[in-house]
């Protein structure tokens, strides 16, 4: 793979729009299908209370299978922030946060989410916000939480974020923390998915996930259905394997799909329900990629450079960024967020007893590794 310094990145900023060179990203058609599933998820969430469901607000890693198996509705704080951002509605939420004195340096996801919680709770209730404004309509759709769960790997800010929401709602909503510790990798036997630290931490997170299920049970008054969890996970495991296979196909040149195609497929492995639909979705993605390979079609019209994208996503600029890179003949073929972060080790999930494998997938999130192992993994992907 070429390194960044062989590409004149200044060209990126010289173009006012990605299309200045006339070259646009060639996005996978299948991703259109994917957005239908996403929209359905939001629609279901917005009507959850009418459907008699309790709602969990959560942050952090991809724990929704536990909620789905227990017949709950769930909303991921970051996903909600991204939902607003993609509709360019996050600014007022952030401003609400700032008006209250939240520092601009505070994580913008957190500011959006807290701002949202604030607006929802205060402004709308007190009639300070026009209920007919698009903003109010967007935020009033989000059902209030019956439970709060935080399962943030690595980043301690995450726990404080939910605790802030807990306090905002008057300390009345039950809250639960799953601690997913960093794998520092300092011991002699440390390595990717091995060593005593890995085993101890797997035990620890598994134990907490079982405690979380007990918490869900306690606050719904219903026993936890472990068989249902296995069933949900069977779809997710299938989808995750297909996704990985499809990603592996993209090592050919020109790359048939890009980071930006994978970015819009993140929700499906992050927080969408585990059903046949996500399996079908990744089957379609994989088939389209295979077809493109057969036809020699790439994700950018004229691939000259192949890049790795490290860092977070700017959710309201996905299309714009994809075109920008395409305009300078750069295929962003992989990224930390897309290629290392979600159900990356599906084979670890034993469908008869999925919890430990789930815990281990949460632990292998790359942010959760000390630098040496994480950089090693990025190297491996680039090779």
């Amino acid at each position, binding site marked *: 793979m070429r390194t960044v310094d062989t590409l004149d990145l200044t060209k990126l900023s010289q173009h006012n729009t990605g299309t200045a060179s006339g070259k646009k990203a060639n996005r996978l058609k299948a991703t259109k299908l994917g957005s239908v599933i996403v929209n359905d998820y939001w629609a279901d969430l917005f009507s959850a209370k009418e459907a008699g469901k309790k709602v969990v607000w959560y942050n952090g890693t991809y724990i929704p299978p536990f909620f789905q198996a227990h017949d709950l509705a769930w909303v991921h704080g970051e996903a909600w922030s991204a939902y607003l951002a993609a509709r360019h509605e996050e600014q007022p939420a952030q401003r609400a946060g700032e008006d209250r004195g939240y520092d601009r*340096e*505070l994580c913008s996801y957190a500011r959006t989410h807290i701002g949202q919680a604030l607006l929802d709770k205060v402004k709308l209730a007190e009639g300070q916000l026009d209920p007919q404004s698009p903003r109010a309509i967007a935020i009033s759709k989000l059902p209030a939480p019956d439970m709060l769960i935080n399962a943030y790997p690595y980043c301690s*800010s995450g726990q404080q974020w939910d*605790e802030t929401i807990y306090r905002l709602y008057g300390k009345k909503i039950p809250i639960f923390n799953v601690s997913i510790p960093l794998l520092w990798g300092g011991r002699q036997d440390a390595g990717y998915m091995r060593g005593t630290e890995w085993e101890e931490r797997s035990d620890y997170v598994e134990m907490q996930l079982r405690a979380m299920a007990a918490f869900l049970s306690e606050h719904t008054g219903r026993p936890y259905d472990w068989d249902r969890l296995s069933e949900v996970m069977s779809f997710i495991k299938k989808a995750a394997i297909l996704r990985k296979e499809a990603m592996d196909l993209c090592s050919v040149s020109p790359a048939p799909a890009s980071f930006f195609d994978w970015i819009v497929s993140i929700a499906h492995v992050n927080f969408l329900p585990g059903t046949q639909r996500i399996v079908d979705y990744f089957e379609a993605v994989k088939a389209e990629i295979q077809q493109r390979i057969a036809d020699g079609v790439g994700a950018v019209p004229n691939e000259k450079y192949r890049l790795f994208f490290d860092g977070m996503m700017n959710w309201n600029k996905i299309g714009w960024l994809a075109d920008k890179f395409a305009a300078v003949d750069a295929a962003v073929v992989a990224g930390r967020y897309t290629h290392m972060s979600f159900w990356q080790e599906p084979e670890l999930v034993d469908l008869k007893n999925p919890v430990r494998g789930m815990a281990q997938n949460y632990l292998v999130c790359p942010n959760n590794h000390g*630098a040496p192992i994480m950089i090693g993994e990025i190297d491996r992907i680039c090779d």
Partner: protein
Amino acid sequence: MREILDIFSGIAGDSLGYARAWKERTGRPVIGSFPMHFPSELAHAAGALPVIIQEADEPITDGEAGVFSFYCGYNRSVVDQAMKGRFDFLDAIMFGDHCVQLLGTADVVRWNVPDLKILFNQLISSMNADWAWEEARGAFAQLRKELDELLGKSVTDDALRASITLFNRNRALIRRLYALRNTRRLALSARDMQHVVKSSMVMDRADHTALLEQLVALVEGGAVPRSTGMPVYLSGHLCQAPKLELLDMIEECGTTVVADDLYHGYRFIASDVGDAGDPLDALATWYLQRNRKVPCPTRVDTEADWVEFLLEAVRETGAQGIIVLLAKFCEPHMYHIPEIKEAFDRAGISMLLIETEHDSMPIEAFKTRVETFVEISRRRLVAA
């Protein structure tokens, strides 16, 4: 009395110099530690000098490239010091986390100073989880094991208990100074108080304690006149000590700091460790309990409420206002600022927020704000 305070101030101002000299003199190991949550008793019991790594006063140069500019001054300074080789004489550093930035810093230090031995342990931050005590105990047991291996020792429970007893004595004496200052029987400036606490983070505990015994005896013998400024409470500033000129300026504006929850202050000495029974049990209990005593914004704990604690503390200590010192980019602290502000507004108590920086601070502008704050607080008092 001044002589003792001068010794404290000298060591507080040059912690690494002191530690290096101590090592040369005694031939014993020195173990550095990230601030806030790790009990230094463990390294002490193993015969080492535990030293809490301080933010340095020098400008950040070598470290600039190693770490993001939106990391707090403490983090940037630690990376800078590491890259300048300032920690090379340490036998190891104990790293842990209490914010996302420190985790990054630990990694950057490991990367740039590969020869420095790092003992990394992550303490549970969700304090009222059912397994919090077990986890905390496990982390301390692991740390003890790693220290034993590193130093080729097997620290006995008795040795650990003896260290705990000594540290408890040290903290109790400093708390005595706090009480005397708060009841106006002792004129100890905010600067002096910082020196007392900060030097205790660094100095040989037995030596420090002996000096403290003398100091307390002196003070209790003859009452020293107390300055008469408006009593204020200082809050915040986690890992890093507030700059001395800032503390001086605050008191020069007609205030007297009567109490605080600074890490380089009351937070550090508020809680003792039980010295009977299993010492690791006692340390785990200490870790969870201290957050109830002085809640820490880097932990989550539905049983603790920092804002309520502050309101109560301000009332109890007779402070007429609160000055919150926020280290720029300190994310855990930032989450709480709006709630603190709202609560003090509601309670009708003046609050002033000062955001501090490592490299440069507009002291003159701050001064104007403190003067206004004093003015408003006084007027409030008259009106009440």
